[in-house]
């Protein structure tokens, strides 16, 4: 049994602007707000934090992880008050690839939560040996809890 605990989104778009022009839209709050969110606070340096009010109720938060001028920006990403996608729990990478007459922008959003929820909470140690059994190819037998629920 293989467990995947995360998901990825990849997007690509061609923009008729030089990487130098495009880059500032990731590091300048006045420019960023033209394409993302309603209100933006940011500190454009590695380890610097940002806060994006996406629609008046969802607040995206995280930090700049990597900044390579005109080439690449990596930001940790999550939502305020969300514990499964907390600020900084997933990662968004923007790559700027120069082309004739413009730039190819490739976005990759890593580590999104999927229905394969990892749990580190106390009390579920019951499942851990079972999952390990599955992973190691042993049949853990009928789950007594499941049986309990079925009758």
């Amino acid at each position, binding site marked *: 049994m293989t467990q995947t605990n995360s*998901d990825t*989104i990849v*997007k690509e*778009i061609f*923009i*008729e*602007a*030089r990487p130098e*022009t*495009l880059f*500032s*839209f990731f590091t300048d709050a006045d*420019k960023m707000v*033209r*394409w*993302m969110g309603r209100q933006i606070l940011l500190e454009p340096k590695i380890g610097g934090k940002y806060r994006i009010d*996406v629609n008046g*109720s*969802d607040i995206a938060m995280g930090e700049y992880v990597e900044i390579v001028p005109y080439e690449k920006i990596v930001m940790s990403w999550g*939502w305020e*008050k*969300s*514990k*499964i*996608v907390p600020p900084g729990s997933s990662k968004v990478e923007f790559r700027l690839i120069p082309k004739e007459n413009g730039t190819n*922008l490739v*976005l990759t*959003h890593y580590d*999104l*939560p*999927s*229905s*394969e*929820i990892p*749990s580190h*909470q106390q*009390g*579920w140690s019951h*499942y851990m040996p079972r999952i390990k059994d599955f992973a190691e190819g042993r049949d853990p037998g009928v*789950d007594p*809890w*499941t049986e*309990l*629920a079925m009758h």
Partner: protein
Amino acid sequence: MIEKVLHALAEPRRRDILYLVRDGELTSSAIASHFEISAPAVSQHLKVLEQSGLVVVRRDGTKRYYGIRRDGFAELKQYIDRFWDDSLLRLKEAAEEEERKKNDTNKQ
């Protein structure tokens, strides 16, 4: 919709419930037996999860079986997917406008 999903996921006990029902349906009493909190409190968590679309209820006689709704997670991913689609289109417009402005200034 997304607010409900994010809100539902924000509570550790609700994440524990999701983890419990991940591999199969359970009744509310079976779920409650794994928690020290009261049955009504568990019911309240189940209600929030159901409203968020992350959990689905099946009724069989007087029993209610709770199971994970994978579509709920797909919707979360779709929300993020749409968010990036919309944002990137706006970025394209804004950056191209900026580029045209720069070029016009250079020509003058």
